[in-house]
Each structure stands twice: as C-alpha cells, then as structure tokens.
C-alpha cells in the first residue's frame, strides 16, 4: 500500500477498485437494513465500517481511516452487541408497520428517499470537486511545521489551529458519558467471576501488553504520524472491554474501579484546560502553542510540536476513560425503583 513519501512517483487511485468498494458498501448497507435477523445486520454494519475505512485510506485520509476503523467498526459494534444482549428477552417487533396501508408502508417512503437521493446528488455535483484548495487549507499544508513544530497536519489543525473545537468535542464526550450514566443508573453491577476459557485468558494475557503499547504509541506519536488522542483512547477503551469479556467483570472492577475511571476522565479534561490556561497566563492566548512557553523541538522527534503531546495525552485519557465508563454503565443489570 503506497505510503506518503515512500513511493517513486505520485500514486494513482484505481477507479475500478473504488467502484468495487462502493458497490460492496451499498450492498452491506442494504443487507444491514433489510435483514430480519438483528445480529446479522449488526455484523454487516461492522463490515461496512471496515470497507469505509479502506475507502478513506485509498482517498489519502489515513487519520480518518484509522479513526473510522477503531471507533465505528470496533467500539460501536461492541456497544451495539451489549445493548442487544440487554434487550434480548423482550419479543422482537415485526419489521414494518402492519396496520398501515400498503402505499404508506414502503412505497411513499421509497419515493421520497429516491427523490432526496436525486436532489442530494444534484447538490453535491455543484460542490465543484476540481477546485483549487482554499486559502486556509493551503496555509495549513505549507506552514504547519513553522507554526507548530508538528508533522501531522490534521493533528495540528485539531490541537493547535482549532484546539478550542477539540475542547468542545471532549465536552460532547463528557455529555454523552453523563447522559448514559444518568439514564442507566440505579442498577446493580452483577460481578461475574467467570470469563472465557483458560486458553483465551492466557492468550489475552500474552497480547494485552502489546495492544496497550500500540494504544500508547498512537497517542504519544499523534503529532508525527496519523493518530492522536481520540484513536488511542478508543483502543484503551477496547482493551477495557476485552478484559471485561475475557476475565469477567469482577476482575476488571477490581483492577480499575469506576471511581478511578471517572477520575481519569475528569483529569484529562482538567489537564486540557490547564494547558490552555498556561498559554493564557504566558500572554499568548488560550491554548496557545508556540506563543506560550512550549518549545517546538527538532521536527520529527518525540518531544516536538509544543503542547501537542500533552494535549494528545489529555484527550486520550478523557476518551479512553469515558468510553469504558459508557460500556460499564451498559452492562449493569437494570432494576427500576419505581415500577409504573
């Protein structure tokens, strides 16, 4: 697979390969929609996520491909399966509305959606994909090394040029975690001491340090290579989910309690804001990078990019702890105090 900076000439994206991938994306999406069996449609949705990650990688977006593969195919699928297993005992409803008239059942929605697709396509065509880059994008591509000291342009946009938006994004994660914990509170955490078999436990014990190393390298090298806090934090959350599945929830709760997860999450957000306030106190503005007391370092080394390393760490802590808290809130056995 051609990597940037390693090939002889400019790599060309082959159109038939993209057409094949798009065809399969639509096919798996249709399977996920029209299949009666819920588990099969979940797996089909996960496959669609992997195919989309491949398309993103072919369209020269490695950061986005990594994020899509980890979050959409890994994390969302496991949350989907947990939610499905919690609601398994109730009877499944029929697929479509049986009391409605046949023209309302699927003909009118299909007509409306077909019209919408045609209008959308007409609107997308006017986006003029052959245009030259805007002034902001060409400035980002040319001046990132000089302005920030980091090499990952997308990471520099997220953590230096538009760092305030990243703070807003971590607030959204916090709101989601609070919402999920509030909605699913009042339950009792049933600790099961069982896990999977001995083979899986020993195999996981062999693999877990390397997965954690991989997650840490994604976070810490986020200013040099595709990656960053969001992707690495999601891999950390995936490790927490894996340990819960393989070793049983009792083992996991004894290792990292819910209290420490909440502390880590809040600590990540506080670290982010603290770094911003340091820039403010220095006179450079909130979340200032090189205008604050941070040094750019030699380009390409680990300690470069100003405060991007610390911001990546803060975001990684926040996302990892937050997403594993969401998972833990979902696997509790819910008991309502006030039955209607």
């Amino acid at each position: 697979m051609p990597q940037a900076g390693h090939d002889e000439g400019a790599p060309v994206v082959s159109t038939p390969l993209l057409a094949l991938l798009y065809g399969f994306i639509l096919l798996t999406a249709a399977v996920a929609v029209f299949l009666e069996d819920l588990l099969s449609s979940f797996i089909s949705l996960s496959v669609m996520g992997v195919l989309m990650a491949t398309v993103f990688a072919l369209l020269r977006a490695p950061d986005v491909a990594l994020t899509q593969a980890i979050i959409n195919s890994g994390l969302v699928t496991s949350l989907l399966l947990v939610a499905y297993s919690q609601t398994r005992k109730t009877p499944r409803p029929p697929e479509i509305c049986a009391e409605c008239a046949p023209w309302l059942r699927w003909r009118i929605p299909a007509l409306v959606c077909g019209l919408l697709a045609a209008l959308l396509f007409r609107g997308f065509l006017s986006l003029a994909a052959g245009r030259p880059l805007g002034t902001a994008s060409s400035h980002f591509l040319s001046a990132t090394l000089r302005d920030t000291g980091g090499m990952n342009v997308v990471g520099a946009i997220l953590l230096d040029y538009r760092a305030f938006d990243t703070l807003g994004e971590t607030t959204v994660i916090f709101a989601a975690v609070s919402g999920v914990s509030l909605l699913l509170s009042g339950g009792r955490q049933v600790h099961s001491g069982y896990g999977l078999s001995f083979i899986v436990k020993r195999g996981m014990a062999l693999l877990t340090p390397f997965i954690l190393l991989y997650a840490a390298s994604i976070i810490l090298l986020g200013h040099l290579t595709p990656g960053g806090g969001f992707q690495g934090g999601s891999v950390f959350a995936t490790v927490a989910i894996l340990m819960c599945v393989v070793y049983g929830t009792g083992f996991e709760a004894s290792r990292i309690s819910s209290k420490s997860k909440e502390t880590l999450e809040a600590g990540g957000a506080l670290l982010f804001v603290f770094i911003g306030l340091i820039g403010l106190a220095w006179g450079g503005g909130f979340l200032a990078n090189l205008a604050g007391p941070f040094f750019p370092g030699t380009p390409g080394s680990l300690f470069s990019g100003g405060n991007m390393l610390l911001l990546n760490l803060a975001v990684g802590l926040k996302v990892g702890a937050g997403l594993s808290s969401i998972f833990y809130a979902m696997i509790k056995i819910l008991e309502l105090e006030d039955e209607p």
Partner: protein
Amino acid sequence: MITMSFVTAALLFALGLFTVLTRRNAFKTVIGLTLMESAVLLLLISWAYVPDGWAPILPLKGPGADPLPHALTLTAIVIGACDIALAFAFIMKLNRFEKTVDVDRFRRLRG
C-alpha cells in the same frame, strides 16, 4: 471518480433515511442513523480529495489532500459514536419500561 463517491453518499443517505422512516425496531433506527452519518463522512472525505495528491503528513512530496475536511470528519466520527451510545442508553431504558423495542409502542408522551 468523485462523481461515483457522490452517488454512493447520496444513496447511503437515502437508505439511512428510509430505514428510520419505515422500520419498527428501535435498533434498525440506530442503524439508519449510522448510515446517514457514514454518508456524510464519505461526502466530506471524497470532497477533500485532490487528484494525484498525497496524504496530509509532512514532508509532502507533491500536492496534498485538503486537511481541513479531514479534521472535521474526525470530530464527526467521535461525536457520532457518542450520540449512538446515548441512543442505545435510551433504547435500553425504554425497554425496561415498555418491555419492548417497538417504536410504535412508545406512546407515553402522546397528549
């Protein structure tokens, strides 16, 4: 090639909307939401593609792809995952109250 991407994005969005409109299972509604979000992501990334361009990692060897929609797409993926998790929490809580995941049975707020 970019025209192909736009066609796929429009079809995916329409498919997601069709799911949300016609299916009764609450999980199918969430699947439709995911499809609509994926369509938007595909649109953003295919719009940011520069012909014969490289990935936006320095040092560049030629023209680079547009990095601004990439940052927007990263944010969109993470926020999409968060709102899907919140939707699951809603479904689980409603399932405890109504003992079903049928969206036609969630009628408590009707006047």
